[in-house]
């Protein structure tokens, strides 16, 4: 009796300690999650804090006299005349008029406020609207990158302001009068790469990414699913299939740069495909995503209950009918989820593309699978290494676009799983 009571006493005494242990164990878990969330939060605040200004552009709106005499132009439809015409002068003259107290002598300093490509914009506008010649129009042009940096980052230690005091005073004045304004940076989404940060855009990289991903998807999904079905449903269980299975699992862990080397050796050097094109990029990324797709597809097929197969076989379905009519539709959600995650991985990949020439300065937006192209993560890499400081915010802005793509792909995967999943 006394012995038993002491047993209960021991249990009661140790109870406190066990609860404490349990609480500590839970606290460790919460701490681990907090660290992960903290890291994520730091990353996001850093990127967004640095990059949100990348979504803003600085423009100059002014009344431009499209004086034919000043531009040496009397017929905007004549290619030769367009080539020889001076489109800088009307811009400089217009801005001199806007700046109070500026004279002809300040023209060099005034010119440094206008984007070097504004004259190209003026040329294109005149080419498209020949009737504008010898009229006066209110037009909006990009400012020079130095003005852009000053307007957005005056007083920020991370940036160098390259305007002199006179120019700073002018810009302040023009900003007050609404001549110089910041607005949403549509150029960033409608243009290709440029060496002028104000004119640089990610459309080329987005299109390049989409083309590459399309090739990857239409190759890796059918091949991966077919391989998974064969291995799971038809292949005999022997040493050889074991060997294949081990190798597929190994392939999933191979560093991606190896696939780039393979692509260079096989697709470019052996088959003579061109460098820097989405087709080769897509082929290389296919090799990279295949193991992921095969592994996830096999897991999805395995999770289809045997009772369904047996029922189908019981009413006389052939092996192929069982697979195509019953197993595959039921396994599809899992396969799609795996593929989307594999694709998201491929979307963020740069290393293998380095070797096949997709890390390149490409201005024109690609218009086909055999057109030189680059992809989003490569664009981030290229901008981050540029000497112009204004590219830092563009790089961060491009990271945000890339993250938006990745998050929406993962969200799609989750949504599909929730939507299509069947429970037994």
């Amino acid at each position, binding site marked *: 009796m006394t012995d038993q009571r002491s047993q209960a006493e021991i249990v009661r005494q140790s109870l406190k300690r066990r609860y404490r242990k349990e609480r500590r164990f839970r606290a460790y878990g919460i701490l681990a999650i907090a660290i992960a969330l903290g890291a994520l939060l730091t990353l996001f605040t850093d990127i967004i804090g640095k990059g949100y200004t990348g979504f803003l552009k600085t423009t100059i709106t002014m009344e431009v006299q499209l004086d034919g005499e000043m531009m040496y132009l009397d017929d905007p439809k004549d290619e030769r005349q367009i080539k020889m015409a001076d489109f800088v002068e009307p811009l400089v003259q217009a801005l001199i008029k806007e700046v109070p107290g500026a004279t002809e002598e300040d023209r060099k300093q005034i010119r440094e406020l206008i984007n*070097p*490509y504004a004259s*190209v914009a003026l040329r294109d506008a005149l080419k498209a609207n020949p009737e504008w010649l010898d009229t006066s129009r209110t037009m909006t042009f990009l400012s020079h990158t130095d003005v852009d940096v000053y307007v957005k980052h005056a007083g920020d*230690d*991370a940036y*160098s*302001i*390259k305007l002199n005091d006179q120019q700073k005073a002018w810009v302040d004045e023009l900003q007050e009068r609404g001549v110089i304004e910041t607005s949403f940076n549509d150029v960033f989404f409608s243009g290709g790469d*440029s*060496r*002028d940060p104000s004119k640089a855009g990610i459309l080329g990289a987005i299109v390049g990414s989409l083309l590459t991903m399309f*090739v990857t998807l*239409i*190759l890796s*999904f*059918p*091949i991966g*699913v*077919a391989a998974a079905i064969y291995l799971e449903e038809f292949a005999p269980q022997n040493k050889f299939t074991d060997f294949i299975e081990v190798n597929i699992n190994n392939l999933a862990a191979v560093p991606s740069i190896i696939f780039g080397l393979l692509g260079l050796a096989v697709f*470019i050097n052996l*088959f*003579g*495909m*061109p*460098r*820097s094109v989405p*087709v080769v990029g*897509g*082929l290389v990324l296919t090799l990279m995503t295949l193991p992921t797709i095969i592994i996830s597809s096999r897991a999805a097929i395995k999770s289809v209950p045997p009772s369904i197969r047996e029922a189908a076989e019981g009413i006389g379905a052939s092996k192929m009918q069982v697979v*195509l009519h019953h197993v*595959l*539709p039921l396994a599809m959600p899992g396969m799609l989820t795996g593929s989307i995650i594999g694709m998201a991985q491929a979307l963020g990949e740069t290393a293998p593309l380095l070797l096949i*020439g997709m*890390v*390149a*300065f*490409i*201005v*024109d937006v690609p218009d086909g*699978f*055999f057109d*030189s192209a680059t992809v989003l993560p490569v664009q981030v890499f290229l901008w*981050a*290494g*540029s*000497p*112009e*400081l204004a590219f*830092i915010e563009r790089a961060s802005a491009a990271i945000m676009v890339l993250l938006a793509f990745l998050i929406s792909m993962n969200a799609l995967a989750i949504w599909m799983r929730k939507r299509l999943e069947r429970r037994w």
Partner: protein
Amino acid sequence: MKLNKALATVALAGSVAAMSAPAMARDTISIVGSSTVYPFATVVAERFGTKTDFSTPKLESTGSGGGLKLFCQGIGTQHPDITNASRRMKTSEFELCQSNGVKDITEFRIGSDGIVIASSKNAENLDITLEQLFLALGSKVPVDGKWVENPNENWSDVDSSLPNKPIRVMGPPPTSGTRDSFNELALAAGCDELPEAASLSKDEHASICESVREDGAFIEAGENDNLIVQKLIGDTGMYGVFGYSFLEENADRLQAATLNGMVPTAEGIAADEYPVARSLFFYVKKAHVGVVPGIQEYVSEFTSNAAMGQNGYLKDVGLIVPPRSALMDLMDKAESMPNLTLDELK
């Protein structure tokens, strides 16, 4: 059955996309090569694309050696048309070109680049000779006639005129052309000033005089020079090694060390007076001129007064432009495209 058909269609489409890679004629100029020349060549390419009806050339930054290797692989549109280099073509590379059928090459020397040792404006500036620089950064230095692991911890251990601060220098990794040039033009040149260097054999010279200490005093910062700039601004005890264009871009916050009594200036680098200056080049494959449209026009854009003149746009992005007489020679060269010969490289 529907699924069956859909799968078959997708698989077919995939295989068609994969197989229909034709050996295509290219209408875009393909340029590879040095990452130092890349920021200049890209600006020319973009201007060329907006100014003319040709499409904008495609530029890959592969490094000088990688670019020449690709360039010399052969004739045909799958190989690049032009390669940029931050050093001259080696005779071995010329021979590789010749053996692969790339016989006619034209060389253009397009200006110079200087390597600077910079620090924050709030830091103590260095006034240092190349010999002192080698003693501070070389992996092995002579002590009492013997080559030993570099014992110098503070700059003042090298020479009492230098700051009494620990030696901490950030620079590019060995894969970078800037690092190659730094090793060759700064360290090896400084090493040669030492009397002990005369007795080194050729192999010893390469392994001792061109290697940087690895005990933490020299910090490799990756290829991103912006990162070095940021670090320098935050840390006044740190010095950084990078190209002159990055110094110019951050001129209000950084100062450059005086090397052998010379402050890096555009004029000094162009005239080869600044000790750590190198020439930049590009090479044109003549067999592709007329096959890939626009090569001749691109070359004349690059060598035009608008690009490389004293008020040219390349000067705005930090290229140290050649003097007028040299530019006139370049323009002539762009017209006549003379062949590069092995004797010129020797």
